[in-house]
């Protein structure tokens, strides 16, 4: 326990980085995922094809590989740079990897949400003369989103856990910090592990409860 108290500021900093990684990637993944979902149901075959290929590729690739590609491939080989500071640069590259990966799952969730919207809704919207974009924006997507709040919450929890993979390119978030604490305090490995596990529970459990409550509250009454 002593190690946990002694290193408390370090641990707090690491989890703050985990939270920032999660939120930044979640926003980017939600936007990209929505665009991909719209592309996958669009009348234009090129867009459908591109989005389908993207989703199938990213879903079948390990996240670690995606992050390594972003960090080492984009970062080192192709010199993609967001910041003078090396650690900030890797942070952004890992956000790109995490959001690119998660967007594929967000897209699938939204697509299944679109399928829960009764056909009559979209037909009525068409009968009123709404175009494809208007139909999605005003009728279908608002209902689809309300139907998939619980799955999106699960995705957010999975994303929170997945941010640990950024350790692969040396982003000092929670898991990498835990590893370095293991090395520094070899006598209290178990306490440190349960401390970090508890902190992850503190992050993920309220997320699950909140999204459960939100999905019940916003459920479309039919």
């Amino acid at each position, binding site marked *: 326990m002593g190690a946990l108290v002694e290193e408390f500021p370090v641990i707090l900093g690491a989890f703050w980085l985990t939270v920032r990684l999660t939120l930044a990637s979640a926003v980017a993944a939600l936007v990209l995922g929505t665009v991909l979902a719209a592309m*996958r*149901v*669009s*009348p*234009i*075959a*090129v*867009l459908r094809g*591109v989005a389908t290929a993207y989703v*199938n*590729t990213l879903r*079948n*690739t*390990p*996240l*670690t*590989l995606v992050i390594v*590609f972003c960090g*080492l*491939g984009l970062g*080192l*080989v*192709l*010199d993609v740079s967001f910041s003078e500071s090396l650690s900030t640069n890797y942070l952004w590259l890992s956000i790109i990897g995490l959001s690119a990966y*998660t967007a594929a*799952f967000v897209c699938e969730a939204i697509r299944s949400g*679109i*399928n829960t919207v009764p*056909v009559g809704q*979209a037909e009525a919207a*068409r009968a009123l003369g709404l*175009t*494809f974009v208007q*139909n*999605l924006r005003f009728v279908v997507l608002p209902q689809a989103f309300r139907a998939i709040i619980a*799955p999106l919450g*699960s995705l957010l929890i*999975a*994303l929170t*856990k*997945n941010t*640990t*993979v950024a*350790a*692969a390119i040396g982003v000092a978030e*929670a*898991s990498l910090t*835990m*590893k370095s604490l*293991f090395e520094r305090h*070899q*006598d209290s*490995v178990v306490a440190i*592990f349960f401390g*970090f*596990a508890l902190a*992850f*529970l503190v992050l*993920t*459990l309220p997320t699950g409860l909140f999204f459960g409550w939100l999905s019940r509250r916003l459920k479309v009454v039919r």
Partner: protein
Amino acid sequence: MSTVLYDTPGPRGILRNRILTFLFAAALLAGLYFAYLKFDEKGQFDAALWEPFLQGDVWVNLIIPGLLNTLSAAAVAALIAVPFGFVFGIARLSEHKWIRVPAGAVVEFFRAIPLLIMIFFAQYGGSAVLGLTVTSFTAVVFGLVLYNGSVLAEIVRAGIQSLPRGQTEAALAVGLRKGQVMRLILLPQAVTAMMPAIVSQLIVLLKDTALGFIVAFEDLLNAGARILPANFRNLIPAVIVVAIIYIIINVLVGLLANWLERRSRRSRKTTIKPIEAPQSVGVG
């Protein structure tokens, strides 16, 4: 559904869609060309970087061993995780509180924490607490078993719970004991229903073996992102080739899952539908 979202285009609609198709295709090609320029600028199309993949030695000595390590870690983990899932899934349905509650706590705990910190814990905890040398293979398998076993436990529980109550009641009424009800009546029907979900979780398990890269397990990703670049300085080509191998394996296993799903739909063992995988399965 998608065709419900827009009318069948008339002459003007077709023209507009053609124009949009053209514009988006042009934008796509421009994006690809930009990526091509960027790759070319850094010399990523040099034959020297891609040529290693035409050599048999490179495959036999560097890539295939990594692939075999990935597959064996996945196979060992799957062989332990599936029984783990059945034991804990059934334990959570026990009538005895002292079995149900601890089993539920274990499953929920390991589902809620990241796989990577379990792998780190296995690596460091094994030597610090038990005085054992934990190989990276063991650490990866340890983490994969606990995480995926817990998710599988939820699948098993959902599968058994999806059966109509009447099945249990009828079985008890004809005089079967609790163990017999589970073994003879519930499990045979539930397994059929949950097979597709189990296979898709095994795909996740296979993908998650790549986490071994972080603890220097010599898996397929390690071959692509460490060993090949160390020899040929070809990180991007190597990672792309390795990604293609992962995708091929996962698509093949995915086809197996689809086939199982179709088969279980035709199966006469049970009338219940294949259960949905618990949410966020497949994300891991």
